[in-house]
């Protein structure tokens, strides 16, 4: 499972795709797609708060970098925890 873990990052079917959200924040989406996201925001407090916060990042590149760092750190942590568990067993 661990190799394929890198593939993910994406979205569950009904929720917003992370890449799409990044594109929205960088104003790279069509009018229709932007509206779709804004419509989701109106129904989704988490997404609404998130966009409000993400818009405050000075550089969208830094923002993407933070996300990657956080995911890498999480991944390492989880592998460590699983190894510890195996030893205990």
């Amino acid at each position, binding site marked *: 499972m661990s190799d394929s873990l890198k593939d*993910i*990052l994406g979205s569950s079917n009904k929720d917003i795709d992370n890449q799409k959200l990044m594109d929205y924040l960088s104003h790279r989406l069509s009018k229709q797609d932007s509206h779709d996201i804004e419509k989701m925001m109106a129904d989704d407090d988490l997404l609404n708060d998130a966009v*409000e916060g993400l818009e405050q990042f000075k550089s969208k590149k830094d*923002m993407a970098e933070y996300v990657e760092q956080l995911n890498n750190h999480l991944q390492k942590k989880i592998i460590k*925890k699983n190894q510890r568990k195996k030893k205990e067993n």
Partner: protein
Amino acid sequence: MNGIKYNHISDTELLEHFYIDHNNEWLGVLLQRYTLLLLGVCMKYLKNEEQAKDCVQQIFEKTIKELQKYKVDYFKSWIYMVAKNHCLMQLREKGKYTTELNENIIVPLEDAPEKNSFIQKDKQLDNVAVALQQLNKEQQQCVTLFFLEKKSYQEIASITGYSILQVKSHLQNGKRNLKLLIEKMSKEK
């Protein structure tokens, strides 16, 4: 970034897998779906990029710990609540805490929206048109442009002359008032 491998698996299913074999990798998959969103939420409350990043890391650790202990049914609402409360704690520690934040930030875990039946929604639709007429002018205008004419925030701002922030707030208040009006109507019936 567009992995497809697990896209067909819902949050709930990922959690179910985890509760069966207690392999933390399922949580890794699940949490990474929320990294960007959580970063945004933390940034909204903490208003500092580095602090927001650290905060997400702490939320991840907390989440992994808590999920070993008990079963969570609606992951999305749950992690949103965990994140908001964690931000509040941080603000409190730094002494930036205000009552205004307290009122808005702590949310009780509500029933998931999925619980609303479609039939009920259908009935409500009839009431929406009536309720829409009862909103104030600004809210009515924004709600109509957004939901019925499918304009973006930017477009609504240009049409009405409101700022984007005002548009957002008219929309949110308008939606909330609509809900209240509709609830009132269905009770009266």
